[in-house]
Each structure stands twice: as C-alpha cells, then as structure tokens.
C-alpha cells in the first residue's frame, strides 16, 4: 500500500469517526429533549418545576363532579387523581364518548405556571384488564397508562 492511499484511508477514517460522533451527539441530544414521562399526579407534584414545559403523560382517574365542558367552545376542564394528589386539567376538543366521571384517563401535555395541566391529547384507558379501583384505594397509574396505548396485537 502506498503512503498516499494510506493517508487517504486514515483521513477517511478520521472523517467518518467525526461524522459518526456528531451524529451520535445529535441523536442522543434529540432523544433527551423529546422524552415523554409517564407520571401519575403524585409523581407530577414531586417533580415540581421540572414538570413545567416537559412532555408528560399524566394518568389518573377523573374526579367526580369536576367535569366542565362547553360545547360551544369545546373547552374542557376536569381534575384527575391517583387517590392521593389531584391535578386540574384543561384541554380544548370534544372528549371521547367513553369519557365520564370516575373513568381512568391519560392526558398528554405539560404543566403550566398557572398550576393546571394543559392537555393536547386525551385518551380513555381501554382494554378489559383495567378495573376501576374501589373507594379509597390507590389508582394503579402504571396499569392505566399501559392500557391507553393502542393494543400492540392490532398491528
């Protein structure tokens, strides 16, 4: 192998390594900025200010008597609870048919400085596995969030 080809090879290897490192940096950076956290009201409260601006999937049960819906503007507000903490949620849009008091829901959005959760997406927990907890029992937020995902079997 001549020195020239060796030089080009070394040059190519270095260029490739730099490009690869840059790519990895961008990928990992992009990953960190776009994580979606799966939290219940308790975790959300514990996170404090970190919850403001972060993308969160908040799971909980709709507190009876807190649902307010204006059909004209489609503004919706309600509170979710895991049996311990409560978080007020606001969203715009018609909720799904199943949405009602006491049902498990997952809202995706972020916490605002004003102290309410701004939801961009509302999902009702489905699947036959999930059962509503009894009075006073703590809500299994994890199971609830899991059941809100489209069933994997479907595709």
């Amino acid at each position, binding site marked *: 192998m001549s020195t020239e080809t060796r030089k080009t090879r070394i040059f190519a290897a270095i260029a490739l390594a730099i490009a690869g490192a840059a*790519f990895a940096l*961008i*990928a*990992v950076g*992009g*990953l960190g*900025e*776009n*994580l*979606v*956290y*799966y939290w219940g009201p308790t975790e959300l409260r514990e996170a404090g200010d970190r919850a403001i601006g972060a*993308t969160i*999937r908040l799971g909980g049960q709709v507190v009876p008597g807190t649902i307010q819906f204006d*059909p*004209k503007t*489609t503004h919706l507000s309600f509170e979710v609870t895991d049996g311990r903490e409560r978080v007020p949620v606001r969203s*715009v*849009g*018609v*909720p*799904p*048919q*199943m*949405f009602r008091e006491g049902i498990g829901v997952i809202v995706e959005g972020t916490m605002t400085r004003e102290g309410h959760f701004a939801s961009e997406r509302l999902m*009702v927990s*489905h699947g*036959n596995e999930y059962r509503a907890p009894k009075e006073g029992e703590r809500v299994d937020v*994890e199971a609830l*969030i*899991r059941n809100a*995902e*489209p*069933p*994997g*079997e*479907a*595709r």
Partner: protein
Amino acid sequence: MIGFLGRALVLLSLLAASAGMVCALAAGLRRNDAALAWARRLTFVFALGMLGANLAMEVALLSHDFSVQYVAQVGSRSTPTWVTVVSLWSALEGSILFWGVVLGAYVSWATWWMKDRHPEAEAWITAVMLACGVFFAFLIAGPAHPFAPVPNPPADGPGPNALLQNHILMVLHPPMLYLGYVGMTVPFSIACGALLAGRLGPDLLRSLRISLLVPWVFLTIGIVLGGWWAYEVLGWGGYWAWDPVENASLLPWLTATAALHSILVVERKGILKGWTLTLVLSTFLLTILGTFMTRSGVFNSVHSFTQSDIGPTFLVFLGLGLVFSIVLLSAGIGRLENEGRIRDPKSREAAFLVNNLLFVMLTLTVLLGTVFPLIVEAVQGRQISVGEPYFNRMAVPLGVALLFLMGIGPALPWGRASGKAALRALVPPVSGGALVLVVGLALGARSPWLLATLFAGGYALYVTLAEMWLPLWTKARAGATGEGLRLLFGKGRRRFGSYVAHLGVVIVLVAVGASSAGRETLDVSLARGESARLGDYTLTYLGAHVVREPHRLSTVARVQVEREGRRVAILEPRLNQYPTMRESIGTPDVHSTLLEDVYLSLMGLSDGGERMGLRAYRNPMVIWIWLGAGVIVLGAGLVLWPSRRLALATTALPRRREEEGAEGSLEVGG
C-alpha cells in the same frame, strides 16, 4: 382430535427440520451429495408438516372446536366467517403458527430454486434455513403451543380483538408483513452460506439479490397497508406515529433497502462484499428483534414479557443469531476479496456508499428511539417513551437527503468523472426541482422542510424520468423505436423497473411531506343541523342512526360535506360497540380526492343523538402515498418478472454463468 393432529404435525416438522439440518451440515462438511439430497427432501417434509398444522388450525377455528386452546382464546360463534378464517393470525400463538407455514413455503421455494446452482454453498444455505425452521417449529411445539388442549372447553369464545374485525385490510396486512419478515430468512441463509463457503460469486450474488427483493416487496406492501389500516381504522387522522410496532417493521426495511443498493455495487465493481453481507445479516436480525418487540408484550412493560415463554425464547434466538452472525462475519469477511476500491467521490459507487451510510444512520436513529424506553425501564424502572418530535427531527433531514441522493446517484457515471462531466450531469435536474418547488408554493406549501422535500423530489424526478426513458430515446433518435421498446421491457427491464420504483418513492415521500406539513384539524361539537368550517369545506351534522349487526352495534352519524355551496359527500363516521369490549371503538369515514382528504372521526353523541362531538381533518395528498407504493411494487415486479432467456441460460448452462457475470445489470447508455 384435531388438536392432537395439529400437535403431531408440528412435531413432525420439528423432527424433519432437525434431521434435515444435520444432513445439510454433514453435506457441507464432507461434500456429500446423498446427504444434501436428504436435507432437501426433509425441507419439503418440514414445509408440508407446517402446512398441515395450519390447515388443522383453520379446521378447528371454522368448526369452533373450543377444546383447542387457541380457538378458545380467539374464536367466537358470532363472528363472520371471514373473521374466523383470518383469526389464525389475530393473536400471538396463531401468528407464530402462521409464521411456520410461511417459512415452510419460503424454504421449499429456495431449495427448489437453488438446487444445484451453488454447489459451494448450497449445503450451508440449507443448514441455516433449517436451523431457523427448527427454532420456529420448537417455538410452536413448546412455548407458543396453540394446539394445547383445553380441559373444560367453553361453549363460546370472546372472538378476536375488535380492532382487527373493524376493517378488511386486516386480512391482508399481517400476511404481507409475515411474507416480508419471514422471507428475510432466505437471504440471511445465503449470506451465511457465502461467508461459510468464503466466496460470493456472481451467481450466488444474483440469488441473494432476488431472494432479498421478494420479501422486500412484501415488507413494503405490509408497511404501507399497516399505515393505510391505521388511517382507515384508528381515527386519529394519520397513518404513521413512530410507534414501536411500526418502527419494528421499518427497521429491516431500511437495511434491506440499503443492501439492495450495495448489491449493485458488488455486481458492478466487486467491492463492498463484506458490507453487503453485514446489511443482509442485520436485516434478518432486525426482523427477529422486531418480532420479539411486538410479539412478546415487552412494550407493555419490560417486566411483563416473562409471563409467556415466547418472549424469552425469541430473545435467546436473537442472541444466538447475533453471536453467530458476528463470529461468521469476523471469520469470513477476510476471505471475500474485494476487487477494487472507490476512486472518485463524484462516481456512482460513491453515491451508493453515501446512500448506504444514510440508510444505516436512519436505522440507528429509529432503533435508538425504539429501544431506549426499554433500556430505561429495565435499568431505572421508570416508564418513559420517546416522543414523535425526536423521530421527525432525525428522520426528516435524513429522508430529504436520501431523496436528493436519488437524483444525484443515477446522474453520476460509474468509475471516474471529470468535474465538468459531473456538473453537466448534475445541473440540469435543478430545473425539475425548481418546477416542483414553484408548483408547491403556488398550492400553498410554506414549511421549510416541505419546500426542501419538494425541491429534492423534483430533482430526483427529473433524473429518474430522464434515466428511465433514456434507452428508448437514444434508439428512437437512431430511428429504431421498436428496438428501444424491446430494450426497455427486455434486456433493460431490471434497470427500467428500478427507476419505476424510484418514481414511486418520490411520489410517496412528497406525499408524506405534503400531508404532514399541510394538515388542518378541527374539533367541534355540533347540534343537529348545525355547521362548521374546515378550510373551504362546510360540515353539517344531519343526524344519527343505529345499525345492528350480529357481532356489533354501531351508532352512525351522518355529516354532509360541502364545498363552495356544492355537496361533495355525505360521510358516516361511526362508533362500534362489541359485546366483548367494554367501550366502543370508532371507525372514521374519509372522502378522498387526488388533492386532499376530508377525514371525520366521531367522538361521541349526546342528548339522544341531537348533539355530536366531531374531530375533522383535512389531509393533503394522502392518496398519493398508497398510489406511490403501488408504483414501487410495480417497479419491483418488473425487476422480478422471470425472464425466459435467463431461466433457459441457467438451466441449460449452469457452469457458464459464473464467467458471464451478472447480465441482468446491463446498463444501457447509462
């Protein structure tokens, strides 16, 4: 009874595959033709056993034999017959059984088709194929076990997942995806055979290319049908959400596409052999990883997948496959001599190399985003997911770069190009890019990435169309139009077909760009007779009615769609209530035109049907995604259509082709 028969047939397959694998290994080690002949026979026995077991399951499903576990799990007397037939692949155990019959079909096709073609590698190829057969037969006989007897058979079953009953596309989508996934076993085996034999000649390369292209076509169809199904059924107005199940099907498609391109460089220049085989091995491993991820329930929770033995078994198989591939590559790659190197960054082979790097970067990006939540949950026990913005931010620039490269690569010559010649080839297509860009601007495109997509798409379109018709054009100018046409569909058909496929890719990517950048959403609650506006459409709620079917109860809303005072359509989005499901599942209704879709999802009804919650979308150009995919498949079909001349040449003169080289790759005038 039928359950017993099914079990016996699965065990027969397992035995045949194991014995065949041993014979093939013996044939490979000792060059024993008698052992190879037995390995071939046993391959067919394996396939027949799998076919029989699948038929047995269909009989059990259709006769509602609830003493068979899988039937008790997914069967129901109230479902329509077509749903009963397709419920073979509606749940985990059945789909693995179905995988078995598809594998059987592929390995017998490969065995029959490669018989005596590759004396140096055939035994190894057969051994690897049957090793995969052993794994799946074992999986069906043990961990998955769809034929397990039910001690106290129920009188009726729950029926398959309601989402699967909701649309006819569900009949087609899973088989296509399996035909894609499972088919990757054959190129994987050929790649292993080449590494074990230490040789990748033109003949073996041709088999590798064709055996990769066939499942690639099915995988393409499967992915697009999956998107189409999501669009028509799930009701959120889109077709792709970067969800792990979707990503799992995209990953092997990306590496397979890269391999299909690098194979061309191997054919032409004799370089990138080891790299190409690496891509083929990765493709197979990614199909197994994808199946593991989607079929083991690991995405519900890392900790729940051990509830079934299927997940861990897949993980072990994946680990073995990975170790085997790495050992094989590190031992065998040095024996495959490269016959040259890339001399000029302005050459077509350099463009192919960049194409491959981009595809690999895209694969790594998607893989990282898909697997990362699993790692976090396994290590830290926290539940997170990676949001769509990550995937879009990473994939959109890479996708646009690939689209642009689709214009640059074919315009450049093989070997060396002078700077002037390269400029002459690369400048004129800019007019195509500019034209499409102007059309897009006129139609209202504003987002920077969409504009970049339109320019790159137009550039690639120009080059593709020019290259596609070049042979015809050159001949026609010499006054021999007939000869030119024969060239396109005869000797140059592979080249022509490839450009048709490129044309399809341009259409799909531009449509994806337009539909994601130009989407409009509306959320309203309407009283009967009330209207709302979506872009230049007026939507009026006409009322709702109930439709009773044996397996479901549907509430159907009627919505009138008007544009400039003229009625365009009456759409009927609905909510379906299945007896076995707690809550109702919506089915959207879509009005498609070549320019845009109006897509309506019924959110709910209240006040006894007097008021309706509606989500409406205006999605530009979505129909072109499905049409473009059709063009891709058409192009691949043109490439694959068996040529009589080639078939004759290979059967009559099996030895000669080694020297002849890859004649299919004739580049006419390019």
